C-alpha cells in the first residue's frame, strides 16, 4: 500500500466519522462533500476515471448541494433537536454497526482476488459499449425511474395540497388527534 493510498483511506474514514457525529447538519454535509471528493480521487486511482468525475460532478456537486439547500431552506442545521426519547440507544447502535462491519469482514476474509483486470482506465470509451449494450435495459429503467422520481418530487411539494387548505384551527385539531 502506497502512502497516498493509506492517506486517502484514512481521510475517507475520518470524514465518514465526521459525517455521522457532527452536530451541525451543515458541517456534516460539508464533511460528506469532503468524503466524496476523496472518494473521487480513490476512484481515479482505481482505474475508474469516468466514475470519479461523475462522483465530483453529480454527487459532490449536485446531490450534496441539494442537501445543503434543503437544510438551509428548512432551518434544520441543528442536528440535536428537542429531547432524545432513546437516550441509551447509541451504544446499541454502535454495537450493531460493529456487527455489520464484522459481518462484511467475514465475507471479505480469505477472499483471494486477482486485481489484474485491464479496465482501460475506466474511460467513457470503455463504459459506453457496456452501457448501451448489455446494460441498455437497466439504463432505460434507471432513466425511467429518474423521471418518475422527478414527477413525484414535484407532486410532493405542490404548494396547494388539500391538507394545507384546511383552516388553521382544524389543522391543530387534526394534529392532536394524530399524536
Amino acid at each position, binding site marked *: 500500500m502506497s502512502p497516498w493510498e493509506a492517506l486517502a483511506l484514512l481521510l475517507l474514514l475520518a470524514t465518514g466519522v465526521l459525517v*455521522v457525529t457532527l452536530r451541525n447538519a451543515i458541517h456534516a454535509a460539508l464533511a460528506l462533500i469532503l468524503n466524496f471528493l476523496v472518494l473521487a480521487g480513490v476512484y481515479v486511482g482505481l482505474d475508474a476515471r469516468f*466514475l470519479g468525475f461523475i462522483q465530483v460532478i453529480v454527487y459532490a456537486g*449536485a446531490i450534496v448541494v441539494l442537501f445543503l439547500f*434543503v437544510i438551509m431552506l428548512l432551518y434544520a442545521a441543528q442536528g440535536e433537536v428537542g429531547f432524545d426519547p432513546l437516550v441509551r*440507544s447509541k451504544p446499541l447502535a454502535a454495537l*450493531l454497526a460493529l456487527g455489520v462491519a464484522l459481518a462484511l469482514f467475514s465475507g471479505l476474509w480469505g477472499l483471494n482476488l486477482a486485481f*489484474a483486470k485491464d479496465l482501460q482506465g475506466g474511460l467513457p470509451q470503455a463504459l459506453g459499449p457496456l452501457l448501451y449494450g448489455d446494460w441498455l435495459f437497466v439504463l432505460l429503467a434507471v432513466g425511467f425511474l429518474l423521471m418518475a422520481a422527478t414527477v413525484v418530487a414535484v407532486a*410532493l*411539494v405542490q404548494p396547494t395540497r388539500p391538507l394545507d387548505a384546511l383552516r388553521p384551527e382544524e389543522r391543530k385539531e387534526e394534529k392532536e388527534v394524530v399524536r
Partner: protein
Amino acid sequence: MSYLFTSALLFALGVYGVLTRRTAILVFLSIELMLNAANLSLVGFARAHGLEGQVAALMVIAIAAAEVAVGLGLIVAIFRHRESTAVDDLSELRG
C-alpha cells in the same frame, strides 16, 4: 483488498449514523454514505472482475439521485405539515 475493508467500515459508519441521527436530513446523509461505501466496493471488485462493476456503480449514482429527489421532497412535505424534521416526531405507528 484494503479498499474493500475500508468500504465495509464506511458502510458500518453509515449504519451507525442511520441508527443514531435524529433528524431526517442527517439520516439521509448517512444513507448516502452507505451508498458510497457500496459503490467503493463495486469499483474495487471491478478491478478483479471487469468493467461491469463500474457500470453498476454508475447506476447506483443515478438511482441515488432519484432517491434524493424523492427523499428530500418527502422531508419538505413533512416539514410543511408538522414543522419538524425530527424522525422521532413521526411516531404515529406506535402500537
